[in-house]
């Protein structure tokens, strides 16, 4: 295993999130009906950061328009893995019906997490549109899913492991990549 190589530092993450916030507003032609749902663990923190930026940009309080969407029970790989711990789902009080839901995750990889998220959303209501924002797109899609906003495209080998570190969870911000031989049983970065 090689030493992890840093591909995004704290400042680059901050800039990427600011850019994504602007992209979300532009694609939606304004802040109306926007709801941000992060996929725990790190996606939920990223959604909160995006909500803070949207509040700053628009002057509209986004704190009641951000939530978390746990997709654990909707995954298609529950059988083959150890039982996954689930996380709380928090949906804004006004719900998601006829809203534009932006799903937020840290890494886009196989696309299976997002497929599970779309299933989980369907159980909660019927958004007018669903968009996807991710901090890192590392490729290797197994389903026809793409992100609307990407912080960084990071071409990677399947054997490599991408780690997203966030202040709220890991004590510092950063994105690293390392070549891991053998086990691919990894955290969010590898499995997402």
């Amino acid at each position, binding site marked *: 295993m090689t030493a992890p190589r840093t591909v995004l530092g704290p400042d680059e993450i901050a800039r990427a999130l600011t850019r994504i916030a602007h992209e979300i507003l532009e694609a939606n032609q304004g802040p109306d009906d926007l709801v941000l749902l992060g996929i725990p663990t790190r996606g939920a923190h990223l959604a909160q950061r995006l909500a803070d930026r949207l509040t700053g940009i628009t002057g509209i309080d986004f704190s009641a328009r951000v939530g978390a969407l746990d997709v654990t029970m909707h995954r298609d790989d529950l059988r083959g893995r150890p039982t996954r711990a689930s996380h709380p789902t928090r949906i804004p009080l006004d719900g998601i019906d006829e809203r534009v839901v932006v799903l937020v995750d840290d890494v886009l990889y196989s696309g299976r997490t997002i497929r599970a998220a779309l299933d989980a959303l369907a*159980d909660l209501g019927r958004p007018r549109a669903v968009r996807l924002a991710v901090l890192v797109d590392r490729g290797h899609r197994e389903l026809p899913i793409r992100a609307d906003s990407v912080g960084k495209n990071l071409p990677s080998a399947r054997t490599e492991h991408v780690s997203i570190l966030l202040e709220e969870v890991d004590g510092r911000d950063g994105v690293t990549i390392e070549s891991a031989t053998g086990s691919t049983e990894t955290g969010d970065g590898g499995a997402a």
Partner: protein
Amino acid sequence: MKHLLTAAMPRDEAIGLLDLAEDMHQIQDRELKKLPALRGRTVVNLFFEDSTRTRSSFEIAGKWLSADVINVSGKGSSASKGESLRDTGLTIAAMGVDGVVVRSGASGAPALLADWIGKPVINAGDGTHEHPTQALLDAFALRRRIHGRAARGKGLDGVRIAIVGDIAHSRVARSNALLLPALGAEVTLVGPAAFLPVPAADGTRLGLRAETSLDAVIDERPDALMLLRVQLERQAGKVAPSVGEYITGWSLTDERLARLGDAAIMHPGPMNRGLELSSRAADGDASTVLAQVTAGVSVRMAVLYSLLASDHAADHRPANDGGLR
């Protein structure tokens, strides 16, 4: 985690299950109460004893997780024709089921089944031994009452709970006496002397404080009073005092209710109104009886998910000699 046979489990494992139950609880607010987690899995509810609430609760829990649930009752099954527990269990396992929920009048039957059939077994009450999901749902309902929506991750530290009634013959009491202290609660057993368990060498019962005077315990203003059902069908004419004596000494009457303050009033059901507690106690704001029933579905969903969602659950959980092995 392979089976759930007892409520004796480490604190972190109990809190993990209660937190998972919080996640499951969320779906009760939804229009579409269904998660796909156990799609394609088959669960058999094998009930050798009559039970409406526990069986329905497990059935709803399984169905909300998208499992196929089959109910087999002792009456009308081959068990009533003399088939042994082992043969019944092996027959059901041979049909390719993924898990068995078993209720039996015989203490220890679920543990035997677990050894025989090699599938996850959940104890839904065995004789006078244990009823672990009841203890978990009691803990869940009480934790929610105390901590509200911020209950996640918390135990029941410092919460004072009195369990009242026929402790010695109650599987609900036994499971609670194992689980609640593990979560940090202080448990007092209250009942007629003949209803209390045999004292251990140190004079305590089940390692817990025991009292015969409910009035003395009420004067201590406990945080929760858990009333056990007087099992009239089992106790009539045996060691119990008369119904009149029981009401005088150990029933939660309106007068005792008034002295109890805002303590949670818990009952596993079905209630004998006027015997264990008055209707006012059963129906008042302090009563958690219906909250316990609601919690039962969430807790059973958490247990089913933990045991059946993954083929690898048994391999990847920390080794555990307690409740979940």
